[in-house]
């Protein structure tokens, strides 16, 4: 490779701005919110499930923008790929048309409203006071940093995620897997009449 080409490549490598521009954020966030609204307004359960898939995928895109590729990949593979397929499977097996016409006997919306308002308040307070509350989580990025450098500084990379999971947070990780095991056992016991 000639030195001129080499230097040109290296300038491309170091000089490119990260792809994560505000436009991507606004597009993905808008898509997530719009399809999230569609999830709760669509009468048809399959349409709602499809809208939920769009929400989950755009949230995966947001994770990618936060330099957390592993979380984004897991979001796609577990939620959009696995769980939503099971959702659709169940929706198609159960006769939704009849049950959606029946009058709902549970009035949950005041509780749901209160819960979502509380969650919103939590998010807003974290957004406003987050810098003061968690100063050790602040990461100052140098002005000229590019994508690779930022990714290396954060812990979204797969190897770093693995190191944290198997090092610092082993106990929490194992407890979470125990919780999932209990849920699996519960599902088996509930569906099997005779074990």
């Amino acid at each position, binding site marked *: *490779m000639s030195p001129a*080409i080499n230097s040109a*490549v290296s300038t491309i490598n170091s000089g490119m701005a990260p792809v994560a521009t505000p436009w991507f954020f606004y597009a993905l966030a808008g898509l997530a919110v719009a399809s999230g609204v569609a999830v709760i307004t669509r009468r048809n359960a*399959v349409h709602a499930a499809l809208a939920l898939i769009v929400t989950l995928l755009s949230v995966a895109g947001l994770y990618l923008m936060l330099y957390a*590729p592993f979380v984004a990949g897991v979001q796609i*593979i577990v939620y959009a790929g696995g769980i939503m397929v099971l959702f659709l499977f169940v929706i*198609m097996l159960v006769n939704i048309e009849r049950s959606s016409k029946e009058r709902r006997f549970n009035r949950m919306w005041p509780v749901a409203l209160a819960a979502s308002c509380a969650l919103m308040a939590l998010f807003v307070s974290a957004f406003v006071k987050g810098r003061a509350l968690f100063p050790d989580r602040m990461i100052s990025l140098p002005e000229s940093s590019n994508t690779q450098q930022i990714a290396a500084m954060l812990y979204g990379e*797969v190897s770093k995620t693995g190191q944290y999971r198997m090092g610092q947070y082993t106990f929490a990780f194992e407890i979470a897997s125990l919780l999932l095991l209990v849920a699996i056992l519960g599902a088996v016991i509930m569906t099997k009449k005779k074990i």
Partner: protein
Amino acid sequence: MPNFIMSYLGSTVTPGEAGNQFWALVYVFIIFVGVAVAVLCMNWIERKALAHFQIRLGPMRVGPHGLMQPFADALKLMLKEDIIPAEADQFVFWIAPMIGLLAAFTVYTVIPFGPSQAVSDMNIGILFMLGVSSLGVLGIVVAGWASNSHYPLIGALRSSAQMVSYEVAMGLAIVSAILMTSMNASGTGTLSMIEIVRAQQQQHVWFIFKFFPLGLIAFAIFAIAMVAETNRAPFDLAEAESELTAGFHTEYSGLRWSLFMLAEYAAMIAVSSIAVTLWLGGWMRPFPNLLHASAWDFIFSLFPGLTFGGLAAIAFIGAARMPAHSFFRIQRIGLAVFAALLGFIALLLLVIAVAGRSADMSLAARFNEGIGYVFWFVSKVAVFMYLFIWYRATWPRYRFDQLMKIGWKVMLPISLGVLMVTAIVGVLVS
């Protein structure tokens, strides 16, 4: 701007890594066209090979030996009336083929045709591929539901149950291959597709032969599960024509139906690429470490040209053996022109191989190197594509309970066992 465009030509990284949007777009375009052409070829080869397996001739009318048949089929499908059933869910019916197609083609972003011949090298490459290809089942499920008809719904339910089941065994087999990537000097594994091939290069072994027979078993699990994942025979219960007419795409016609076919074949190529990358050394030529002298490099770089030369020779023989009747004159000329085209490509490849044999990293040498990488990758994938046809011609379809039994009671325990033994052996070795 020209500098920005030109500067990539000598680069040794993928366009995604170099942050070069122009070349990324060019690569996307090349891959899209390449896959579309590959699907056309696959369509013809499948029909011809199946026919010969069953002692028939297969398509013979459109072009010499039916070579133009895929184009005629494509034209017919585009001109056909696009029927949407009256009771169908219009929007979902419309969007379902696109979901499948998008999922199948998005996967190609991370497939490494060479160390720099990929759109992008992601940190989570294989995870991304698995995740996005698992979205393909959504297209099938949604298509079956939106048709508002019994056969498609049953086909969709079958295929979703099947794909969710086989994904588990497939994922575990992949994990055992990923474990092997950490058996190198640095001791860190990787999920990046390019780094997985580099790990095989560093360890001087394809992962199919690593920890024999562990790698082989994991590969076999994957090779079975990938047939089930793509809904191909003998696991094609989702479109079992004897029971469900055509399964999930019964109600589809014309262009939409052809989108489903395109998605299916693109997904077949994609999963074959995963198998090649993980177990068969990706873009590497045979014995890159054992036979590494520059003379061997030159000999192996002749292979692409010789392959096309062989194809051209076969086509020429076919033209010469055409019956000497005036009815076959146009066909004979057409086949001769096709052979000449193949021969020209062969000549071009041989010229590049000769011009780029020096290791001075000139543009010709880099081009030669790139052709070699893509050639070996594609020929490994082609073996799998032929296997898909071979399976279809050989084995009868499974019953659904047999399918589930194999998935959950045979493949899953074996893949779990292989994963554990691989981990133990890996710890003992290092």
